[in-house]
């Protein structure tokens, strides 16, 4: 009943109420676009003009500057979806549903891009577009899970009911992903004892790490921007659907 309580409540409604959420978060879009563009310009400049070629990989190291960020996003987006799924199941937060739905196609796209750039990097480095090594294989399985989640969303007519069910499946997938990762690694080493080329963190010189980090931030900013737009679109879509339903009901009455 005190002041603190009411201010907390208004903070909560600002996040939870779809209309209010769109109203205040629209102002974030322009700064997000600017940050994304600036980071990409800086990152690409660093990647092509300010970084040397790797002594081992030569110029193909430049593919890493788009491969690592997309691979990072493929997992980060699943993390966002899992947190949103918990929000849906525990607090029945309406914006968590929307966030989950908007993130799924983005995650699928970035995972596909990670595989695409990985294949183009593997061809000059390993001599083949596709190698059944642990990391690429588990990324492929992750892509299949994303496709399953997108298909599940599309299968439901009632999106409000769909949210809780997709949330359950998303969390089952989240529990499963480490198990898949472990089993695929076990399988890959069993069938392929020869060690593949590894790019481990500490061995990378700073001249490669700087553009890599800038590109990771650039891609993350891009995801956040597109995710916010997707959430706004989803809120509008639900509003359109409820208005159309009401219109149809009035027409029938």
């Amino acid at each position: 009943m005190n002041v603190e309580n009411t201010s907390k409540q208004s903070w909560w409604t600002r996040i939870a109420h779809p209309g209010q959420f769109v109203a205040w978060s629209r102002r974030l879009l322009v700064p997000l676009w600017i940050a994304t563009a600036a980071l990409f310009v800086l990152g690409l400049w660093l990647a092509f003009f300010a970084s040397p070629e790797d002594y081992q990989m030569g110029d193909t190291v430049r593919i890493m500057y788009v491969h690592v960020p997309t691979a990072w996003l493929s997992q980060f987006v699943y993390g966002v979806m899992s947190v949103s799924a918990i929000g849906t199941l525990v607090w029945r937060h309406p914006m968590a549903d929307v966030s989950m739905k908007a993130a799924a196609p983005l995650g699928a796209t970035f995972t596909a891009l990670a595989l695409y750039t990985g294949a183009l990097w593997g061809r000059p480095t390993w001599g083949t577009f596709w190698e059944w090594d642990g990391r690429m294989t588990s990324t492929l399985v992750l892509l299949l899970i994303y496709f399953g989640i997108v298909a599940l969303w599309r299968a439901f007519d009632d999106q409000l009911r769909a949210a809780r069910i997709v949330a359950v499946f998303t969390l089952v997938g989240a529990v499963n992903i480490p198990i898949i990762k472990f089993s695929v690694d076990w399988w890959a080493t069993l069938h392929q004892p020869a060690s593949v080329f590894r790019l481990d963190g500490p061995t990378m010189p700073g001249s490669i790490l700087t553009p890599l980090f800038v590109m990771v931030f650039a891609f993350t900013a891009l995801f956040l921007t597109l995710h916010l737009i997707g959430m706004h679109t989803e809120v509008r879509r639900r509003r359109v659907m409820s208005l159309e339903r009401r219109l149809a009901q009035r027409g029938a009455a």
Partner: protein
Amino acid sequence: MIDLGPHAVYIVWAYLGVAVAIAALIGFKLVESRRLSARLAALETAGADRSATHP
């Protein structure tokens, strides 16, 4: 332009593919957003919701 070495083809294709995919993604998201905003505006001016609750 800088020299990309013997594997330039793969680098160019990697960046090109990512650029095209991201451009398509952005374009799709923006078009979808515009389309739904227009539809919502049309429905709201038609008075689909307000007239029932606020006469």
